[in-house]
């Protein structure tokens, strides 16, 4: 028996050739079509559900925006005023100069004030022509 030599060929060649019956075909196709219809219906329902949810969300968003706009137009925000600044002291440069001069006076008298004022002018970068020790003393003592 040849197939013993080539068992694979034998199994391949002896593949059973069966045919389905009419009853089976009818039953299988009918049930398959029904399953197909059911799936299509279910998908349509689910798509419609998603669409209606999206529509609800969109409507809610429109309402919220409309309310927001209405509130903005009814109660317009007050115009913002620029913050006021109150001058409670002289400029830092002046204060520093006055303070440093005061300290210098206490430390070393008129020579120290002179030296300090020279330094201050150097730091501030400008030296007014009329600036003098007398004027500074007037500013310092208020006399």
């Amino acid at each position, binding site marked *: *028996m040849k*197939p*013993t030599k080539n*068992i*694979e060929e*034998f*199994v*391949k060649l*002896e*593949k*059973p*050739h*069966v*045919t*389905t*019956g*009419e*009853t*089976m*075909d009818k*039953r*299988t*196709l009918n*049930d*398959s*079509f029904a*399953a*197909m219809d*059911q*799936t*299509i219906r279910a*998908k349509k329902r689910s798509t419609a559900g998603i669409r209606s949810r999206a529509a609800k969300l969109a409507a809610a968003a429109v309402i919220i925006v409309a309310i927001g706009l209405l509130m903005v137009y009814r109660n317009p925000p007050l115009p913002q005023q620029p913050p006021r600044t109150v001058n409670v002291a002289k400029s830092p440069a002046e204060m520093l100069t006055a303070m440093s001069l005061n300290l210098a006076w206490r430390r070393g008298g008129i020579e120290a004030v002179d030296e300090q004022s020279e330094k201050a002018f150097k730091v501030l970068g400008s030296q007014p022509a009329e600036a003098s020790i007398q004027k500074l003393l007037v500013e310092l003592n208020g006399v």
Partner: protein
Amino acid sequence: MIDEKILVWRFNRGSKDALKMLYEKYKDDLLGLAITLLRDRSLAEDVVHDVFVSFAGTTGSFRLSGTLKGYLSTCVANAARDRNRSRSRRDVGLEAAEAMDCDSGDPVEHAIDSEQSGRLMQLLGHLPYEQREVVVLHLHQEMRFKEIAEALGISINTVQSRYRYGLDKLRSIMNSMVTK
């Protein structure tokens, strides 16, 4: 192959004609597979029926990777295995090959087919279900070992060893038949 892809595309679009054509194309082949595995025509018909009904339920979302024949064969093999497990442990017996009686038209052709396939069914009936499954999927359904391994969820080595043991057993049975 292209025709098959077009049919699958049409099936996904909800075409019943496409489903019918796919059924017509593969029904006999799948029924043969189920009968070879289960050795019971009525159970085999139920398996093919269930596979097609569940396939029809995937319309619109079915994605084909590989061939449709391979996919459907895998479904039939899995469903047949489930049936084989769940059915009672009655011995199917060699005479179950007679259960292949079908309502095909030509009685002569039917007789020849029955005789040929009956011989093979007798032989395959001696194999354990797992070996029979692998042998049939590889030689009749032309599935590669890798495909079978993926379909059955086992390693390719297991598939190859089952196939080898199955063929060895068939060979020894046939040799013993020849010596008698």
